[in-house]
């Protein structure tokens, strides 16, 4: 039995401890904001925070999260007013929007540890989050914009 705090709520799970958090969140906890894009940790669509750090939930099992705290896009802010979310809207970043939960979670973790990232910092930290629509210019600009407010 694993116990995980998800968006401030304590939950238990007695299924296969090898279940990736992605599928636990989506299919069991009903939190569908976290997206499946590759299942191999190479696209970043499933990015969540585990004890504050950005991780790929498709590569992180329930067992690895036992006793820890998870934040998903649904829990990043209560009202959608996290500076990264606001910057994303201000610059109209998304096209299809599918990868954006992962992008936002990655960007939020970057800014939490480095509130004045350089272009290189942004490129390095964000390069594992793919966007097929190609919103990279705006993602980059939105991180810069949010950096002032995190």
């Amino acid at each position: 039995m694993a116990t995980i705090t998800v968006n401030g709520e304590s939950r238990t799970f007695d299924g296969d401890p090898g279940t990736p958090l992605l599928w636990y969140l989506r299919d069991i906890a009903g939190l569908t904001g976290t997206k499946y894009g590759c299942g191999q940790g190479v696209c970043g669509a499933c990015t969540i925070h585990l004890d504050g750090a950005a991780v790929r939930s498709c590569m992180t099992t329930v067992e690895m999260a036992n006793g820890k705290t998870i934040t998903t896009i649904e829990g990043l802010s209560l009202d959608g007013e996290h500076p990264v979310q606001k910057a994303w809207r201000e610059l109209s970043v998304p096209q299809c929007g599918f990868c954006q939960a992962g992008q936002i979670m990655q960007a939020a973790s970057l800014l939490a540890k480095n509130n004045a990232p350089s272009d290189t910092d942004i490129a390095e930290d964000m390069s594992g989050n793919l966007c097929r629509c190609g919103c990279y210019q705006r993602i980059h600009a939105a991180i810069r914009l949010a950096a002032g407010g995190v």
Partner: protein
Amino acid sequence: MLHYLKQEAQKAERKAAPVVIENVSRRKFLGGAVAASGFVLAVRIPDAAALEPLTPYPTGGASMPHGYGNASDPHVFVSIKPDGAVTILAHRSEMGTGVRTSLPMVLADEMEADWSRVSIQQAVGDEPLYGNQDTDGSRSMRHYIQPMRECGAAMRQMLETAAAAKWGVDVALCRAKAHHVVLLDAEKNDTGKKLGFGELAEAAMALPVPARDTLLFKTPAEFNYMRKGETKITDLRNITMGKAVYGADVRLPGMKFAVIARPSVLGSKVKSFDATEAKKMAGVEDIFEMEGVHEVPRKFGQLGGVVVVANTTYAAIIARESLVIEWEQSPNASYNTDAYFKEMSKTAAEPGKVIRNQGDFDAAWKGAKSTFTGEYHMQHLSQAAMEPLCCVARVDGDKAELWAPVQSPYGAREDIAKALGLPIENVTVHVTLLGGGFGRKSKWDFMIEAALVSKKLGGTPVLLQWTREDDIRHGFYHTTSVERIDMAFDDAGKVAGWRHRTVAPSILSTFAPDSGYQFPIEYGMGFVNLPYDIPNLRCENGQALAHTRIGWYRSVSNIPRAFAVQSAVAEAAHMLGKDHKEFLLELIGPDRTLDPKALGFPEDFWHYGDPYESFPIETARLKHVVNLATEKAGWGKPLPKGQALGLAAHLAWHNYVATVVHVDVKEDGTITVPHAVTVMDCGFYVNPERIRSQVEGAAVMGMSQALYSGITFKDGAVEQSNFFDYNIATMANFPKIVDVHIVEPQPGRNAAGVGEPGLPPFAPALANAVFAATGKRVRRMPMGAKVA
């Protein structure tokens, strides 16, 4: 594009007469005193000085399956609650272009609604009611700006008429403004008396729709939202909060999760399978075989395989790995990319079927002072939208209900009804948001699969999930191609002869017995419609049989054509010692409107399905975007070693696009793009902000396919499987700054397509810049991350 293509394929199959689309827009008949509609509203045209009639122009929208349906009818597309809340239907699918916002915004603006009081409702698949819903082919705005403006203008005039009746005044004194109708005095000044849309809704909706020729439209100066670029996409907040609903986010009570093990080689059937181990795994509920569609053409028939149903997606995925399946051999197992390129290259060296012929190329070639030959190769591509295919289906008895990220909900509905043996009325297709589409999601094989699984489970709702590996390996791939261009130069260094040979398996092979030859839709994409002033020009098509499912991918055949033509032009300029831009302008030649007949275009010339006269090819527009893009990019400016500009210009979907790419080739050969400029002349446009985002994204996708992405086959199976071997651009290296300039439209320049045309020029502009920077010419896509 789909059932449209099916329609076109059937024509090709029947060797029918040329696909000349007589655009009998029904609106033509509604005009004038004909009053064919039978219910011309007995109202006088409101006196609204600035409003003006909008001359209708025919588009191919009328000849798409189910035409425009009732797209101009406010009773179908608009509802207004007594409190004034307005709901507008979005009947096209949102996959990132912004169409779910832009089209309703057109309607809202024209009806003078306050956007903050408008909500958008996604339509189910019902083309007889809404008009064609094939959200592809860059046609949503191109075909629906007119009906949506008509719908909005009609709604506005109905509200004004209702107000006139309430006040007992002449309708000329009633003017819709900001969600109200205001009463004017005899001098046309606002009296301060007004009625809200909500108060007028019931009476307005009881009125018949005014005839087309009584409708008055806003002038651009009166637009509140159109042309402004200030309207945020309707799903923006939900997207940033993880609340937006995509295909796999639909949850039904009792829903199960399924994946399918499909054959690695097209046409291979299940010989036998052993599910003993898989069945023992936790969460697994059922495992069974699904018959595939193996008759050719397969169209969107399911591939067949073994279905695993479980209580979570993960349980289904891992159980699938334990299946032991023996597959039958398929003749497509002979498909090998290297050998196929050799074959295509050989074919391109031989005469092909002549598709366009103008003047005498052979004579020009014989009399040439010098010649150029270039051969350009391109691998298959996978659309690889970030959201893998998925569909929720509930097929309970004689009723089926599906939810999917689908570009063509009605085409899907028709085929699902057939696959289930149900009347179409018993099938409902809901459209969720699409996590990208790029053409793959207008092929609904995944929805048929989901429907068949739910049926087999006796009505249990099921979410059928494709893994990324499934998506990469079981696609409808962008064709692979060899494009060969031969040019003959005269004594003055002018191009006297041009021969373009295209060799590529055709999309038609998916819909009709494969002849190995392409069809008018593919010929029309930058091949036979080359807008250059060359006296002797021949376009030939060599045979190439398909061994995998060929489908469309954003921009379709325009990608290899622009890559070949725009690379060849740059190469020839270099060979002749001319400036590329000047040489390109010289090739485009004098300002003129092309006459397809006089230039030897084929009889069945396909002009993106539109009547030529609504979107004639004007060389001045192409030259203008070339001049503007080079000017904005500083063409000719000195740059440090390893840096250079490259240019390409291409006309697609009636949209004239020029792109200048600035490359900086690093010491280790890594190609980077610090800056790109794209100038687009797309005619009448409404949402410049989303147009810019489409072009920015096209630069990233253009870089992906120029440098990284390629699908290859070995023994009939796709060699790639996920984003670690099917690579796309990342934030580690992408076009850093993309400047987008939209040419202000002149009257009569109708709305062109926008979603796709930004893409084709990027790769050749990049290749041309790489050559200018390094002297190395790359004639294949993908070219690799580094210059060797």
